[in-house]
């Protein structure tokens, strides 16, 4: 088998395992299997709601935003501006966390500082503003406030700790990966 085919196989391995597994469930236990595929289908429809615009914006950002601009606002010396932009971009985002990773990829590729990108991912994961109203109405104001305030610190602490713990070589590899994925 040639190298390209091997890589294809590696990329699709997880999907193949899941497909074979769930199809087997569908055969052995049709009720459960149909439930699995029903939920997956709902999820795919939900994904069509958020992912296409995210990827279009990624493409536009990739083409139009110059590397120097990104480095200036989100790079190593961007300071508080980079941090605030990270929080803003992450919390204004819509869609599940897996939408954040490709966005992180393009930001890294354009020269964003790793901690700022981790702030985007952290805020995207836990501080989405469009979701806050949902949270207040379902969980109450106090619950929402405690979580939101704690998350500001949590996101910062996690972002900077990861940057501290990673060696220069680890960081180089992350930028290398981001390049590969874009």
């Amino acid at each position, binding site marked *: 088998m040639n190298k390209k085919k091997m890589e294809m196989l590696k990329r699709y391995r*997880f*999907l193949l395992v*899941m*497909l074979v*597994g*769930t199809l087997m*469930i569908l055969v052995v236990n049709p009720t459960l299997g149909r*439930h*699995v595929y029903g*939920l*997956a289908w709902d*999820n795919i429809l939900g*994904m069509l*709601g*958020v*992912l*296409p*615009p*995210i*990827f*279009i*914006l*990624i*493409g*536009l950002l*990739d*083409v*139009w935003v110059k590397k120097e601009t990104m480095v200036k606002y989100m790079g190593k010396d961007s300071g508080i501006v980079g941090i605030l932009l990270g929080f803003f971009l992450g919390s204004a985002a*819509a*869609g*599940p*966390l*897996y939408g954040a*990773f*490709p966005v992180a990829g*393009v930001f890294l590729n354009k020269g964003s500082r790793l901690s700022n990108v981790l702030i985007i*991912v*952290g805020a995207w994961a*836990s501080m989405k503003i469009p979701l806050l109203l*949902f*949270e207040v*109405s*379902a*969980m109450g104001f106090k*619950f929402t406030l*405690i*979580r939101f305030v*704690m998350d500001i610190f*949590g996101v910062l*602490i*996690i972002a900077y700790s*990861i940057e501290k713990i*990673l060696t220069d070589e*680890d960081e180089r*590899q*992350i930028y290398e*990966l*981001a390049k590969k*994925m*874009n």
Partner: protein
Amino acid sequence: MTIVFYGVAAAGLILSLAKSKEKTKLALKKAWKAFENIMPQFLGIILLIGLLLSVLSAEQISSLIGKDSGWIGVIIASIIGSITLIPGFVAFPLAAALLENGAGYMQIGAFVSTLMMVGIVTMPMEILYFGKKATFLRNGMGFVFSILVAIVMGVLL
């Protein structure tokens, strides 16, 4: 929210098209490539989520993380929250329903926080962009932090 996102993307496309047709084409090509890169992992993860949510029901979850389940309940809630991946607008009503069904605030705090910060099923995707080390670190720290959130909720609520 979806409409806002499509609006922003459409406005961006129109603006880009007005400035340069070539660059817009390139942008769309890059958008497709970025999507195509994660699609196989993504579809696999969607099937995994479907499977997990079909096996675990709301009643099963709340029986494990009731008010009196204490620390064990917090740990179980954190583990369930870390594994499952439910969109927020589904998760909050679910969390509220679990509270009504007898789950405790501390346990629900741990569940909601890990649900958002820790994503075990999306780790294969995260690793593609951040590598193993950073991915394990982010998820591990998110887990510990969520337990901290749970403790604060337990004290204050």
